[in-house]
């Protein structure tokens, strides 16, 4: 088959469909992964003994367990416990749980890098701990965590490919199917590689812009205290 025909009539439409699924996976995961990450970081840092330990345990498990294994557990394992999730849902849940664990570490690192004096001053003004965390600590911590969090977001884009292993036909899955059907391995995988590279590069660019927009003079975003 002519490369041009292959490209236009088969590959691009297939990859386009896959790209849509990938974007759906990422867009759904990101906000929840961020929110859960914040909660876990706060629980770990400011919670009592039990909560802090539970959050630490969460992080140990979901960082140490490979994402693919987690996906298998959610999709192949849960049915034996009576819970059957659609593949897409299982994928999103798995991504959120994993993403949150890594996010929480970046956020906690950022919280720790904030000078003690900030909390002290807030409390001296009569704020409760919760108020201080909400209006003084978190706004600064989240800014400082942007490099790390955006790093994780880019990882998310790439690791969304694992959803194919539990039958979600996202970008990589679409490529594999086409490649196997038409025996055009190198071409197809290089093509999908280019799509991922484009996604990643665009995201990096967008994140840089975001970082500049929310930056405050004197808060360089570097976690160096």
């Amino acid at each position, binding site marked *: 088959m002519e490369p041009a025909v292959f490209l236009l009539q088969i590959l691009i439409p297939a990859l386009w469909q896959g790209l849509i699924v990938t974007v759906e996976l990422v867009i759904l995961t990101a906000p929840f992964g961020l929110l859960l990450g914040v909660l876990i970081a706060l629980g770990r840092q400011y919670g009592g003994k039990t909560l802090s330990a539970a959050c630490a345990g969460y992080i140990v498990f979901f960082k140490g367990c*490979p994402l*693919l294994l987690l996906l298998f*557990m959610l999709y192949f394992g849960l049915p*034996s416990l009576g819970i059957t999730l659609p593949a897409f849902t299982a994928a999103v849940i798995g991504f959120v749980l994993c993403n949150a664990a890594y996010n929480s570490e970046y956020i906690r690192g950022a919280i720790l890098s904030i000078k003690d004096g900030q909390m002290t001053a807030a409390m001296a003004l009569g704020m409760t701990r919760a108020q201080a965390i909400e209006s003084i600590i978190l706004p600064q911590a989240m800014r400082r965590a942007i490099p790390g969090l955006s790093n994780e977001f880019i990882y998310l884009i790439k690791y969304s490919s694992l959803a194919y*292993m539990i039958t979600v036909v996202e970008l990589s899955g679409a490529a594999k199917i086409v490649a196997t059907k038409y025996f055009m391995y190198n071409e197809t995988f290089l093509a999908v590689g280019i799509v*991922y*590279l484009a996604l990643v590069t665009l995201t990096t660019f967008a994140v840089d812009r975001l970082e500049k927009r929310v930056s405050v003079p004197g808060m360089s975003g570097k976690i160096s205290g």
Partner: protein
Amino acid sequence: MEVLAILLEWGPYLLGGIAVTLGLVLSALALGFLLGLPLALGQVYGSRLVSTLVSVYVWFFRGLPILVLLFLFYFGIFPALGLDVPAFVIGAVVLGLRGAAYQSQIFRGGIQSVAEGQMTAALSLGMTKWTAVQAIILPQALRISLPGWSNEYPELLTDSAVCYAIGVMELLTRASQIVSQTYVTMPVYLVCALIFIALNYGGMYMIRRTEEHFAIPGFGNQEVRS
């Protein structure tokens, strides 16, 4: 209990996967180091061309998902080169090439954070650039890089599981086989997860001990005073 019996029966098989997994990880770490350090040196001290080539390499191998890289090499590149090698080798090569991309950036950061004054002093003593790099810059750069480099280990460990996709008989693949043969799912997966977690923290512990062993008083992760 039925589950327990099955776990005990298949335990050895699953544990055998540890050797394969660690084999993947250690090969990738080694390949990553052997390739990553020269890449870093090329980026910092090489010509514009060399530096650009390295940047492209890094961009490519960091930008592609590990799954796509495995597919590409397993179905595409290796067959196209006429190489018929076990999946394990392909997995180790891919993880290693990718690891080199990440590690080169860690080493680059380490090299660049060694204060310029160190190189100046070395040159003023009559050393060639190459000697200076070897004897003065690298020993410091490598120490500085150690914490960042040690993060490679957990990453490679969790990434090794993706080699399931090309049939390498590591931990996850074996766990899946046990599941499909015995229909016991969650217990097997959980045991597999615990093994990964144990390997993760055991490995990090060893690395931390190594870090402490090589530590120099007053030489932290902060800026090096020149």
